[in-house]
C-alpha cells in the first residue's frame, strides 16, 4: 500500500500546473470556446512539447509510455484548469486503443499524435445506444477487399476536428473497430456545441468505403477494445472531475472567507461551514475512487475491473454533482453568473456525468455484478 506519487509524477504535475496557471486563464478559455471546436493549436503544440500527448504511446513510437497514474495526474491538472482541449479523447482513449491493438499499419499515427500533428477521436456512441458498449447498429460489410460502412455515430468528442476516427461498426463476425480518415466520401461530420464550451460531432456514414487495413485489431473482436477505451475514458474523467472539484472547493473557500454579510465573513456561519465540510468529504471520497479506478484499469480479473470502474464513475459523478451544486449555492448570485469560474466548473462537472455512463447507468452495471 503506497499512495505516494513518484518524483516524475510530482514533476509532471508541477510543470503542467505552472504552464496551465500561466497560460490557461479563464479569458483564454473563453476565447477558445468562442472560436469553436475547443482546441487551440498553440496550446496543443505546448502539450506536445510537454510530452503529454505521447503519454499512452510507447517510447519506441515517440511517446513516453506512461502508466495509469501518470495519466491520472495529467487529467487532474487539466480538470483543475478546466482545459477544453480534447486531450482525453486523442491522447489517452484513442491512442491507448491504437497502442493496445498494435496493428503495424496504424503505428505511424501514434508518432503523429505524440508530436501533435494529428488528433484522433473515438467514434462509438450512437443515437440509441445510451452508453451501452455493445449497442452498435452501424454496419460494416466486406466488399472487394475492403469494407463498406453504413450508419451513424453520435456525441463524438472532437469528432469534427479530429484527423482520424476510431469507429465501431458491426460486421457479420461481430463488433469491429476501424480507423477512418476524417474526410471520406460518404462521411459527413457536423460539430455541435456543448454547454461547457467544447464540441462534439454527429457523424453520418453513408456507404463509406475503406481498405482492409482500416480494420483495427481482430475482426469481430472489437468489444474488448471498446471496453478498454471506455475504461480509460472513465478513469480519465474521474481524475478530471477530482481536479475540477479541488479547484472549485478552493474557489468557494476563498469566497466564503472574503464575502461579508451582516458585517462578518459568511464563512463564519455554521450552516455554511457544515456544507463546506460535506463538500470536502465528498471531494475526498471522489479522489479515493479515482485512485481506485486508475489502480484497477489493467487488472486481469474482468469483474473486479468492471466493479471498480462503475463504482468510481458513479461515486465521482455523485460527488461532482454535490460539490458543483453546493459551490454555486454558496456563491449566491455570483454562482449563477457567467462571469466567475464557478459556473464553468459546475457545467463541466455536470457534463462529465453524462459521458461514458451516468450515475444510474453505472449503478445498474455495478448492481448487476453484485455477489450475494
Amino acid at each position, binding site marked *: 500500500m503506497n499512495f505516494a506519487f513518484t518524483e516524475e509524477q510530482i514533476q509532471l504535475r508541477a510543470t503542467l500546473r505552472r504552464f496551465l496557471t500561466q497560460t490557461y486563464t479563464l479569458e483564454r478559455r473563453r476565447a477558445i470556446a468562442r472560436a469553436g471546436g475547443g482546441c487551440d493549436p498553440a496550446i496543443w503544440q505546448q502539450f506536445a512539447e510537454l510530452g503529454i500527448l505521447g503519454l499512452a504511446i510507447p517510447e519506441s513510437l515517440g511517446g513516453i509510455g506512461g502508466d495509469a497514474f501518470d495519466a491520472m495526474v495529467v487529467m487532474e491538472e487539466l480538470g483543475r484548469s478546466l482545459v477544453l482541449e480534447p486531450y482525453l479523447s486523442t491522447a489517452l482513449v484513442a491512442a491507448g486503443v491504437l497502442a493496445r491493438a498494435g496493428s503495424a499499419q496504424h503505428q505511424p499515427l501514434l508518432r503523429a499524435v505524440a508530436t501533435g500533428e494529428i488528433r484522433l477521436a473515438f467514434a462509438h456512441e450512437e443515437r440509441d445506444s445510451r452508453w451501452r458498449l455493445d449497442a452498435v447498429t452501424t454496419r460494416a460489410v466486406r466488399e472487394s477487399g475492403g469494407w463498406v460502412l453504413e450508419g451513424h455515430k453520435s456525441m463524438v468528442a472532437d469528432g469534427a476536428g479530429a484527423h482520424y476516427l476510431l469507429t465501431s461498426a458491426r460486421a457479420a463476425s461481430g463488433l469491429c473497430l476501424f480507423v477512418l480518415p476524417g474526410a471520406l466520401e460518404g462521411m459527413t461530420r457536423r460539430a455541435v456545441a456543448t454547454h461547457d464550451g467544447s464540441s462534439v460531432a454527429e457523424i453520418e456514414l453513408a456507404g463509406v468505403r475503406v481498405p482492409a487495413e482500416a480494420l483495427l485489431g481482430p475482426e469481430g473482436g472489437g468489444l474488448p477494445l471498446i471496453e478498454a477505451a471506455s475504461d480509460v475514458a472513465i478513469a480519465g474523467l474521474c481524475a478530471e472531475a477530482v481536479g475540477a472539484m479541488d479547484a472549485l472547493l478552493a474557489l468557494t473557500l476563498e469566497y*466564503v472567507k472574503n464575502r461579508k454579510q451582516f458585517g462578518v465573513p459568511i*464563512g463564519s456561519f455554521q450552516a455554511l461551514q*457544515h456544507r463546506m*465540510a460535506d463538500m*470536502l468529504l465528498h471531494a475526498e*471520497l471522489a479522489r479515493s475512487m479515482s*485512485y481506485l479506478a486508475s489502480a484497477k484499469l489493467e487488472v486481469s480479473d474482468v469483474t473486479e475491473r468492471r466493479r471498480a470502474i462503475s463504482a468510481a464513475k458513479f461515486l465521482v459523478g455523485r460527488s461532482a454533482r454535490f460539490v458543483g451544486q453546493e459551490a454555486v449555492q454558496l456563491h449566491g448570485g455570483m454562482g449563477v453568473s457567467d462571469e466567475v469560474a464557478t459556473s464553468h466548473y459546475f457545467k463541466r462537472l455536470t457534463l462529465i456525468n453524462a459521458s461514458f455512463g451516468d450515475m444510474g447507468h453505472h449503478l445498474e452495471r455495478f*448492481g448487476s455484478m*453484485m455477489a*450475494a
Partner: protein
Amino acid sequence: MDLNFSADEERFRSEVRAFVAAELPASIRDKVLGHKRLEREDFLSWVRILNTRGWVAPSWPRRFGGQEWDPARELIFEEECALAGAPPVLSFGPRMVAPVIMAFGTPAQQQYFLPRILSGEHWWCQGYSEPGAGSDLASLKTRAERRGETYVVNGQKTWTTLAQHANWIFCLVRTSSEGRPQSGISFLLIDMKSPGITVRPIVMLDGGHEINEVWFNDVEVPLANRIGEENKGWTYAKFLLGHERVSNATLGLSKRALRELKAIAAGTPAGGGRALLEIARFRDRIAEAEIDLMALEVLALRVIAMDRERHAPGPEASLLKLRGSQIQQTLSELAMEALGPYAPLHQPQALAADWTGPLAGPSDGIGITARYFNHRKVSIYAGSNEIQRNIIARHMLGL
C-alpha cells in the same frame, strides 16, 4: 502508487483469519452474527482468548505488552474479527484510557493498570458526558474536592456505555472553577466498587440496556488515581481524542452488515419468483451503499498513509467518523426495509441465545429493526457528526 496490501500484510490477514476461525467459540460467534444479546462473560472470554496471542491491545508498545502493530494491521485485524463474528474488543480500556496512562501516568499506574486491561481483569467505562455537558464537554460540573490524600467526588455522569459491567471508570471532573472551563478539569481513575457510586440503567429506544447514569455521592478517590497534574485533565482528554483513528470508519462492521443485508435480500421473496435482491429499486440502494463503503475504505487507507507520512494523526479521522457512521446507518436502515411487513416485530425474548420458543417473521430478522433504532446513536456518540463537521471546517478548511 499501489492500493494493494503488501504480501506480508496478506500473510498476516491469513494468520488472523486462521486464528479467529480456530479460537472463536461457536456459541459466541452465533450470538454475534445472530444479533443475540451478549453477556459480560462473552466479551471477557474473547479478551482472554486474544490475550493468549497478545492481541488484546496489539498496537501498544512492546514494553507494555503490545505488538506495535501499525494502523494497517489493526485495520486488517478488526475486519477479520468483525467478519468472523467476534465480539468487539471495547475501546475504553485498550484504546482510550491506556494511551493516556502510558503518556501521562506514573510508572506505578502503568504497572498496575495496563496488565489488568490486557487480562480483562479491569473493565473500563468512560465518565465524560453529563446531563449538562454533551458536545460542550468542558462545561462539566462533577466536582472533585481535595481532602488530604483523597478527592471527594460528587456529581453525575451519563450515557456511560456498559457501566453495568465495568469495574473501573475514567472520569473528567472539575477541580477548579477559575479561569476558562477547560483549565479546571482533572482526569481521575475511579474504582466502580467505591462506596457512593450508583449505576442506573438508561433503557434505549430499542429496549436494550447498554448505557447508564453513574452517580457519585461523596466518593473517595485516592490522589494516586489522578492522571498527571491537577487541572490538566482537558489536555489529556484531548490527547485521547487524537487517538480515535481509522477504527472510526467501522469498515469491518459495515462489511459484515453489507454481507448480511445481501443475504437477507437474496432470501426474501419479492413476487414473480424473484428475490428482493433482484428488484432494481432495492438493489440500487444496496449497490450505492457498497460503493460508498469501497470509497470509505480507500479513504481510510489514505488516512493511514497520511498519518504514517507525518508521524502524527490529523483531522481526517473526522471524515472517517462522519462517513463511517452514515454508512452504518444506511446499512441498518436497508436491512430493516428488507424485512418489509415483518419490520415492526419486537421479540426481545428471542435475543436470548437459548430461546427456542415460537417466532414470527423470518429467522434472520431477529434484532434487525432494533439495530436500526439503536444505530441512530452512531452519529451522536464519540463526537456527533455536527462536531465532526466543525472539526473539518476549522482544521481542514481553516474556517
